């Protein structure tokens, strides 16, 4: 009758942090500059964790999924703040709160996709605290912002004591809750190529309740010629994989074609090759694939001239 012997060491042996909802004891330090961050990191080594909005980190600490010795609060680091435009690039500081994304004029003008995404992210109280840097660093596969930055063809600016480097958003997300961030590195900003007159972008998702993580979602970014021809389409799905999924086959099915019922159907068909969703509490992989197809149709139809939508 006995399958195997296992030793459960209180919570540690348990799958999901059983029996704990109180944080472990940890220290707290507030950094006032990047130099401060590097200093604190070298003092505390592996035990240090960055905290920005805390909207994800604090919950995971309560489950004792990790037990850092010190939290380094980066919210007072000026280098990580602000939204600006320089040389055709929109620079969004890592500390930009979700709520700020939703009301910033520059973002509305140059990266409207981000503004459109904000109402889908959690609830107002969380949006007032959560930051874009935190969302990207955590890389939840069902989160909106990782998919948006990939769709926008953005570049992430990463910094560490050793210096700065840039990583394309699509190369940044490397696996389930995994990113290209190295030890001691943080995200300082996101750089987004600014929208042109031909740019079209939108986000669509299905969530069980408003503010929930998506069962399936899609961020689209493309250029639409005056003749209705699509160039450089980037369809990025979320909630259907280990991270944001840039659908290459679907993109190829659309690139260079006129946007219409036919090309949309082709994109939907091509998706089969792009998506391999895991099942989750909401349903099986077939459901996620189905929802992705439905969302694709709904999202792309938004770019059709009004006369063609009626059907």
């Amino acid at each position: 009758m006995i399958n195997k012997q296992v030793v459960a060491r209180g919570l540690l042996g348990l799958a999901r942090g059983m029996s704990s909802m109180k944080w472990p004891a940890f220290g707290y330090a507030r950094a006032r500059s990047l130099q401060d961050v590097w200093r604190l990191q070298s003092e505390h080594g592996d035990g240090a964790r960055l905290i920005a909005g805390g909207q994800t980190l604090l919950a995971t600490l309560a489950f004792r999924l990790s037990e850092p010795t010190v939290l380094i609060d980066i919210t007072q680091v000026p280098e990580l703040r602000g939204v600006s435009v320089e040389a055709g690039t929109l620079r969004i500081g890592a500390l930009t709160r979700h709520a700020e994304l939703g009301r910033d004029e520059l973002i509305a003008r140059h990266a409207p996709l981000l503004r459109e995404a904000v109402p889908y992210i959690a609830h107002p109280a969380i949006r007032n605290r959560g930051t874009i840097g935190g969302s990207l660093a955590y890389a939840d596969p069902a989160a909106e912002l990782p998919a948006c930055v990939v769709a926008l063809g953005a570049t992430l600016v990463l910094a560490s004591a050793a210096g700065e480097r840039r990583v394309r958003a699509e190369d940044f997300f490397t696996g389930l809750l995994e990113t290209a961030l190295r030890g001691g590195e943080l995200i300082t900003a996101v750089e987004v190529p600014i929208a042109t007159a031909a740019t079209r972008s939108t986000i669509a998702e299905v969530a069980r309740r408003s503010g929930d993580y998506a069962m399936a979602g899609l961020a689209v970014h493309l250029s639409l010629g005056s003749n209705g021809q699509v160039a450089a389409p980037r369809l990025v799905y979320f909630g259907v994989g280990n991270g944001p999924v840039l659908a290459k086959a679907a993109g190829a099915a659309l690139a260079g074609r006129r946007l219409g019922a036919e090309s949309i159907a082709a994109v939907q068909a091509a998706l089969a090759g792009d998506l391999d969703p895991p099942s989750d509490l909401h349903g099986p992989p077939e459901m996620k694939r189905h929802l992705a197809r439905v969302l694709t149709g709904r999202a792309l139809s938004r770019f059709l001239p009004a006369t063609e939508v009626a059907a």
Partner: protein
Amino acid sequence: MNDMPTPESIGLSREDLPNSYIGRSVPRPNVPKLVQGRATYTDDVQLPRLVHAAFLRSPHAHARIARIDAAAAMQVPGVVRVFTGADLAKVCDPWVATLDHLKGMKSAPQYPLPLERATWQGEPVVAVVADSRAAAEDGVAALLVEFEPLPAQLDMETALAPGAVVIHPQLGDNLVFTRTAEKGDVAAAMAAAHKVVEATFVTGRHTGVTLEPRSIIADYNRAEGTLTVHHSTQAPHMMQGVFAKQLRLEDGQVRVICKDVGGSFGIKVHVYPDEVAVAAMARILGRPVKFVADRFESFVSDIHARDHRIKGRIAVDADGKILAFDIDDLTGIGPYSVYPRTSAIEGNQVVNLCGGPYDFANYRCTTTVVLQNKTPTCQYRAVGHPIATAVTEGLVDLAAEALGMDPIEIRRRNLIRDDAYPYTSPPGMRFEGLSHHAALDKLLQMVPVDRIRADQAEQRKRGVHRGLGFASFIELTNPSPFMYGIGGARISAQDGATVRMDPDGSVVVMSGVTEQGQGTEGILRQIVAHGVGVPVERVKVITGDTQTTPYGGGTWACRGAGIGGEAALQSAIALKQQILVVAGAMLQAAPDSLDIVMGQVVDRDTGRERMPLAELGRIVYYRGDTLPKDLPRELVQTRHFITKEYPFAFTNGIQASWVEVDTETGMVKLLEHWCVEDCGRVVNPLLVDEQVRGGIVQGLGGALYEHCVYDEQGNLLTTTMADYLVPMSAEMPDMHVGHVETPTKESLLGAKGAGEAGTAGAPAALMNAINDALRPLGARVTEQPFTPARILAALSRI
């Protein structure tokens, strides 16, 4: 028990009760305290020498506890002591949750912490007591417990099959209870019927999610030999008896204090092993021990409910007359029946309530209650009602569909006539007076059916699928001892109230029913203010203390207003009569020529003010020498109330739900919801409406979102508020509430229960609405929750 005044004996019709607060939306007295953060929840109670408990809970659905090594845990700073099942068994007896009137029922002895085996994931196995909760959790993390996993019995469908894992070998099998109610000749009726339709329904396992989690502080005082328990509970007196019995104390040695409670919904009326463990640890340590369940623990250890699979058949004749119901219910209740109400009552309620609103002759209903290695289930808001209503109303709609009949028409033809009472239903439920047809008529005044049907047809042309669904229901409230008492449970069906007047003319009422956040204290205050004749502001309400309030059952099964309210009304009226005797002596008037209105003694006929109550109080308490020597002057009265004529006061109602189903995504949008219910006398319309709305939300939550999901190993996957989805305001529809009032004649107040009606009918109305939307597409859902995945599967989209 004292004689009960009747409306006639006090010379009034029920409707004329003077200067009445009854029937008015008087604000609740405890609201400012609650919203200003000045409530006293159990967790707010600070005691000297307090220590905190945390539990190591079983990571396995079923496992032998091979070894417990506490050495490292004892080294953790702040840890005071570690307790195992064997440690606690020395001072605490196990309990077995069966009821004598549920024939053949069996369950196994349950200890506060198990001795040999853990039988569900989340069962408390070892307790660590420390200076702080954080230290106690550190201690738990340092425990070394070796589990040998055993095969788990998870699926209720195979619980009785050969080869099933018998969870308690001494019981022989996993059968807890089975009962069949039979009336008439179902087989013959089915054979002769014009149409017979059948379906299988599943109601999802869900749980209560109280805002305030289960909380307890137990303090054993060795000097006095007393155990004082601060407890977030619905039933302080019942818990007093439980702690006394399990810890081998006299009832009188135990005091249970329950101040503010942040929601219960039935979750806090049961005996939980971790809570009894806290009392046992306090008994051993001789100091106060606190335990507050965190949200994670709540999901794995609060009772779950409604894990049922029901096969149902309905037979109708060509006119749509219902001939028979044939129902087979199966429910899995976890590894133990829960003490002391037992986990067989929910299934038993399904047997009692199916077909409830309808007049029909042939009935067969079986419930089978089995054990499984999941969190124990027990009574949760509207116990069994949402299940029975979903099955009944689902079948009635299917019959209407088979007949091509309108769902309103089939109900009109079959609902028990409003002049048919008293009426006994096929499973033997006795109804004193219900108002199904009046409620239906009222509902149809509120629901613009023609406009909705026109909109539905119009939208269909555009590929938008909307549906309208109805659900009639009955609800069992004001239970007599027939619910638990006859089964041997020490659960009081009677409740009492003491009402007294103090020298300043203010009034204090002490009641055995309790406040869970639903407004019990508000209605008690209104009733007493009405009964004595004082402004509501002059009445203070005290509940939740076994040492000061009259003995009673507490708050459950919608009895607060009907039982506790009546006891309060009777004692208030008795106090008024007593005051008028004194006033008569002081004013040299016949007591029955006087009355009390808004704190003034007045002439009954003219209303002329004679004396403020404060003046009467001053003389009684400080200048008693000026009163006649033989004048009785006790300005305090106590009355108890219990229903005697009917085992239960049934209420009834009907709900309607209007929804839109996105047939591409499977998402359901709730557009509008209506409920007409009859809870007898409405004491406070605002509170009743909000009870109904809250109940509807809870019903809709269970039908759309809430689900305790297990994997094949018996791991509960939904242990956070991100995974266990409760209904939120953004998704809730506008809800319209209407009333029909058929007061019970068993009491002067005439109130029945109102807290569960919303929950009873909402899932069925929603299911019927979704299926109304899906019908032209040939799809149907009967398995709750109605998730996008299930709706898409029904539509063959996935």
